[in-house]
């Protein structure tokens, strides 16, 4: 027999098996999800959820697909949060803190309350990556924010109105495009292909009978 617990979905009480995730518990209760459900595996940030265990003062945040229900859990999902996403041309953008002052000046109004970090569903040090962004250290901002799923819970808790995931997104793109070292072997290969270096080899494979392709495949040398 399954152990049942009481959960309160948007305040209404349901009895559900205790081994379910919050998402499965909603479906068990009879919800047919359209919003607030994406990859169901912790990568897409669609199922941001805020909860409180009865008697506990602390509000907690999680992804509904990655979190088991608990007894007396009060659940409010946050299927959408109005983050501010500024548009820019990645080809014509400053790669210093100037760009942050221009696009996301509110990050300089951070009061250091650390509510963002406490709320992060991925356990990231959000306030720290915003600090890196403030001083134009985009490489550190990119690394610190890398596992962000852009669920938006941090921003929902921010008194300064910062859209942390979008700030980090910008930092990562600047880092990936401009600050990370270039890749010579990639450039060389793209040029070789354009120059037709491999055309003859490939065209020979296009014509080869299947039996010969099998021989080629089964006897190929595999890098250790």
């Amino acid at each position, binding site marked *: 027999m399954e152990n049942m617990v009481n959960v309160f979905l948007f305040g209404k009480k349901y009895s559900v098996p205790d081994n379910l995730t919050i998402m499965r518990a909603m479906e068990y209760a009879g919800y047919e999800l359209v919003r607030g459900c994406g990859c169901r595996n912790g990568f897409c940030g669609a199922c941001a959820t805020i909860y409180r265990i009865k008697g506990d003062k602390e509000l907690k945040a999680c992804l509904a697909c990655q979190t088991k229900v608990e007894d007396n859990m009060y659940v409010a999902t946050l299927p959408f949060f109005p983050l501010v996403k500024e548009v820019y041309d990645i080809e014509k953008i400053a790669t210093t803190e100037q760009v942050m002052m221009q696009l996301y000046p509110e990050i300089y109004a951070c009061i250091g309350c650390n509510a963002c970090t406490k709320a992060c569903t991925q356990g990231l040090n959000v306030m720290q990556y915003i600090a890196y962004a403030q001083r134009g250290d985009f490489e550190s901002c990119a690394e610190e924010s*890398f596992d962000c799923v852009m669920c938006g819970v941090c921003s929902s808790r921010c008194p300064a109105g910062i859209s942390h995931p979008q700030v980090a997104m910008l930092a990562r793109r600047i880092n*990936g495009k401009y600050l*990370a070292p270039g*890749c010579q072997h990639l450039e060389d290969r793209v040029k070789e292909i354009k120059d037709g270096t491999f055309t003859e080899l490939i065209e020979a494979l296009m014509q080869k009978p299947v039996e010969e392709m099998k021989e080629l*495949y089964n006897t190929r040398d595999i890098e250790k």
Partner: protein
Amino acid sequence: MYSEQFQKSLKAVEAAREANIAFEPQRMTAQQKEELLASYHPDYKKDEFTELLIGPNKGDKVPHELAETLQAHSRIKAEDVDLANPDYDVDVLIIGGGGAGSSAAIEAHNSGASVMIVTKLRIGDANTMMAEGGIQAADKPNDSPAIHFVDAFGGGHFAAKRELLRKLVCDAPEAIQWLSNLGVEFDKDAQGNMITTHGGGTSRKRMHAAKDYSGAEIMRTLRDEVINRGIPVVDFTSAIELILDSNGNAAGAVLMNMETKELLVARAKTVIIATGGAGRMHYQGFPTSNHYGATADGLVLGYRAGAKLLYAETLQYHPTGAAFPEQIFGALVTEKVRSLGAKLVNEKGEVFMHPLETRDVAAASIIRECSDRDNGIDTGSGKGVWLDTPMIEKIGGEGTIEKRIPAMMRMFEKYGIDIRKEPILVYPTLHYQNGGLDITEDCMTTGVENLYVAGEAVGGIHGRNRLMGNSLLDIIVFGRSAGRNAAEKSKSVELSDLTLEHIAKFEKEIEEAGICTDVVSPKLLPKYTREV
């Protein structure tokens, strides 16, 4: 921490770890692989397939669940919508907001076309977002597109359409360069060299990654770029029927708001299907690693309008889905775990196969271990085998797991399992639709003019099995190509009157074939709601 029931087997795994790390298991011969697949791979279970009675692939066999949705009724009748007054009118309509659709949108936009994405959930709610391990490209000096071609062709059982595969491997390095220029952060060393590893069935280390968030990193960057360009994204809206013109060419789609059910008409000069895969069809009852909306919609839309399918009977079961704890049952455990050195180990602590066989072979081998050989571990919700993750730390040094596969560490940590110290339990999970709509090299379907396809909805790029890292690659290569070609073609298209006559025509075929069904399609979302 694992409970008492696992401890005996765990001790055997731990005791054998040092020896297992040193042990180099033999790869199977071609004949051994064939025999293994025939006996244990789900694609070979004849009674799981149904012959199609109608449509362009009449006579072909596909999984029961797919046959049911392909031979189902439309959600609408022609008279339900007013085609004369479209709600949207664009050059290029892209159905699907994953990696392929977004890449197509960016390139179509570059070509000067007016372009729109329609997606039934949000942009980025796609299998692309969940791809963990990496993306292949032959860009190292010891590698070449020709070697990549041979690996992929053999891995796909020599069934790929060679002109599609040629395009995949030859355009791969440029795809990486394009992503890099958009700001995707690939793992590199201090000199800028790509850090690359093996995948199952690769003969060179050509797997590029962004930790184990490779797909997420690519997807969020593409999404950001689509928004920066102001490309309209109509979200929470599904395409439920293609619209043709009086010449039988694709000319738009009927759309449905997923929440209000309002019907809308989008007219377009060319249409790109980029709807992704089908894991949520749960073929043969398998769990899946796919996102919530992976229900083969594009196959249904195309098939009903007259487009042909290729290899729709072949599915990929990823060898390592999570088998424990049950909350993440079926979730993907990236192949990169094995690329980094973890081996598959049975209940007795024995390494029973080379960890980097192709996915179909690895899946079949695990199924054999858990069935006839009875060397599986009982997980409480079925059997599984160990994937000995602590080996990674011993081989690569402490900290390797946190640096290279942080998502895996986090996924298990939430359930009290530290994969740096304890192995994990895995079993095959439904992962990828190898087959799909048949296309020519320019990404157009072979049956319907002006209808393009990109991404997982395409059949034939990989053949009957796909190598790790070639799907993230194909969504970029074929997405970009479809976007460019559809935009170019749209310049010369003169649309005639729009029609939905094919709905009634297909309905008649259903009736004449004597198919009795109350199923409507596309399915759009799986049904997980408990009947209350």
